[in-house]
């Protein structure tokens, strides 16, 4: 018996999965492509409303109505294996074309080329511009990628939706031998059942060292205020990303919970952001840090550490004097926003053994550092002593991995204990953040 439409469960947006199924089935009979629609209804994506014991994983923080536990630094999540990993000891597939699905320009093609030379395969890198697009395409089931680079905050969706396959650790020994120990048990995937880490980075402030001296910004009581400093009016930028921008405003206001659902905190952050519009004529961009600052479009911009490390490639004049104008600030007590990417293997991968080998390749010190030299994003490698990254020269560029005056951009393993991780939000809290972002874009405080 169908429920009455007025009888709604508020936290699921008005419909339970059963209702959705029933209605969709009814609809499918009334529209062409009924078979297709029935298939769509049966697609592996939604979960049952059953108890948490049947859920896709276990974790302390499991909000009501959520199909899976949400990972937090203090509430780690262990994901269940929804199917067995591939068997050990298999030979890599021959004559394959490795399908990689990654952000644009985020992996050094040469690293992939060398992998393919070693394993006798071809490769194709498909890129996405935002994670929603990636999710939508992956869910259609029509595209079979072997490697996918998600951020940890969508792991819940991916694993519940059975889009990722569990890893067989015997193929990826270099994670244990070469990568930071913390990644054998990251809080978002305890026991590394589904992921290996890709790049680690912090979010701070990039600035022109010839206009703002290192001493000046480090001497400020609240260095985040430099983005509100009217001296740089017209040359200030923040990222065009609702999480990053609002998080930074939260940190400026002294709030350290970057996953907060507190309406007051979010409102204050929104007001702070809106005040930027009149104070400094702020602009939003994606590439403002690594393209805009070298080019002179921005004097100061919110920046990821990897962006500033790589920014020296983009200065108009390629000389030491110009490179020394690029600066990066992160709190000295390392209490700021930290993040990392992951590499995973989709469930529909056609070449899983090769994919595992690729993960191992990326965990190997030599290859990870070569990738680092090209894209500027530090890999969590044990042998890469953070204190030596500013002095060791990269074999690819011939210059230090990180310029000495960008020492704040080097990420330490301990940052993941002192720093704040942006994680997945419940839909209601997410909506709050979105509304704050839309309000900022409309100029309404």
């Amino acid at each position: 018996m169908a429920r009455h439409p007025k009888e709604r469960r508020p936290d699921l947006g008005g419909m339970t999965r059963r209702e959705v199924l029933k209605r969709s089935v009814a609809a499918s009979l009334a529209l062409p492509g009924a078979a297709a629609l029935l298939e769509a209804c049966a697609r592996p994506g939604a979960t049952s409303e059953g108890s948490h014991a049947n859920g896709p994983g276990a974790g302390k923080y499991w909000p009501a109505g959520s199909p899976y536990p949400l990972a937090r630094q203090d509430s780690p999540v262990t994901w269940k294996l929804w199917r067995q990993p591939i068997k050990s000891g298999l030979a890599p597939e021959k004559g394959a074309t490795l399908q990689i699905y990654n952000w644009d320009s985020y992996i050094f093609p040469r690293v992939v080329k060398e992998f393919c030379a070693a394993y006798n395969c071809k490769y194709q890198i498909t890129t996405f511009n935002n994670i929603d697009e990636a999710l939508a395409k992956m869910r259609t089931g029509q595209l079979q990628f072997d490697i996918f680079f998600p951020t940890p905050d969508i792991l819940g969706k991916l694993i519940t939706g059975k889009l990722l396959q569990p890893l067989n650790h015997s193929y990826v020994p270099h994670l244990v031998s070469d990568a930071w120990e913390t990644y054998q048990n990251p809080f978002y995937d305890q026991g590394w059942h589904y992921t290996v880490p890709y790049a680690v980075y912090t979010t701070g402030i990039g600035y022109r060292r010839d206009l703002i001296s290192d001493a000046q910004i480090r001497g400020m009581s609240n260095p985040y205020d430099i983005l509100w400093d009217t001296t740089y009016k017209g040359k200030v930028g923040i990222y065009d990303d609702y999480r990053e921008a609002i998080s930074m405003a939260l940190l400026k206001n002294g709030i350290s919970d970057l996953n907060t659902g507190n309406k007051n905190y979010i409102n204050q952050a929104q007001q702070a952001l809106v005040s930027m519009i009149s104070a400094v004529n702020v602009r939003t961009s994606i590439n403002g840090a690594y393209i805009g600052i070298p080019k002179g479009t921005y004097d100061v911009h919110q920046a990821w550490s990897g962006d500033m490390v790589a920014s020296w490639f983009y200065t108009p004049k390629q000389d030491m004097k110009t490179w020394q104008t690029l600066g990066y600030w992160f709190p000295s007590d390392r209490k700021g926003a930290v993040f990392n990417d992951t590499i995973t293997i989709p469930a529909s991968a056609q070449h899983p053994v090769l994919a595992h080998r690729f993960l191992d390749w990326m965990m190997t010190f030599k290859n990870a550092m070569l990738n680092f030299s090209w894209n500027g994003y530090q890999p969590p490698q044990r042998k890469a002593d953070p204190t030596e990254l500013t002095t060791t020269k990269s074999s690819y560029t011939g210059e230090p991995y990180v310029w000495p005056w960008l020492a704040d951009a080097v990420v330490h393993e301990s940052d993941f204990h002192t720093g704040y991780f942006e994680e997945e939000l419940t839909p209601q809290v997410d909506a709050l953040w979105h509304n704050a972002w839309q309000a900022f874009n409309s100029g309404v405080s």
Partner: protein
Amino acid sequence: MSKTVSERPRVDRRSEGPVPPAGSRSTRTPLGWWRNPWRRPRILATLTWAYLAWSLLPVLIAVGISFNSGRSNSVWQGFSTQWWWGHPSADPSGALFVSPELRAAMIQSLRLSFLTMFIAVPLGVAFAIGISRWRGPVPAGANFLMLFSFVIPEIIVGISMFLFFTYLLKFVHLGTGGQLLALVTYQISYPVIIVRARMLSIGKEYEEAATDLGASPTQAIRRVLLPLLYPAILVSFALVFADTIDDFITVRYLSAGANTEPLSVKIYNFSRGALTPAINAAATFLLFSTLVVAVIGVLLYRRITRGQRGQTQEMTEHLT
């Protein structure tokens, strides 16, 4: 067809002495010159040339920058073909014609554009012909939908097609097939508008004359109506090709993998990331392909209408 001022015999009235066309002053004096209704308007001329310069100069500069020897997009640093054939330092995988990814993207661009052109234009032309003669609510409704699909922002068309293919018509796969269907849908209104406008000015006399002389309806269409529409049809081909090869919104949503992403999407990706002259080279390539197609169209037109070719004015009349 109307004749314009410029088709009149070119007579320099000033040399004929004081023969005032209006008023009684000689055109040699400033006031006379001002009052001369046959002089070319200087202001309008200046404005027109200024507009053309404003419109095209940035593009010429952009084409020039694609041959920049440095990596800057705004400052000229010397001539080099590194972004076209070489191995620029900023892009280790190679320049436009060297990198396999960019080459695949170029081929996909051309493939999509040609296929869309050859599907959308016949459909649109047939629709325009049918609609101009068939009255009623159904054709009016379809006509409205066509126009609506034309003015609605393309991102909506792209997303709705993506959702439609992934939720309902699941047998349509992402990739070239899906991209083609979406592109044709978006482009079909172009030939409809152009051909319809042309048909409004043709009138029914020609077909009537043909059928009066014994032609069957099909023959009347084929031998009388279509040849009159050739210029409009060729223009539609050129415009649909141009619009499709530059499209980056719809095809992005419906692409299946890197090998189904055309060059326009790569340009869009470049524009969000690192701007190097590589993007100029890619865009210049697209521009040249379109120009080639347009030139072929013009040459074809001249060949087809060899016997009837009149002055340039007639040809340009027929275009719009």
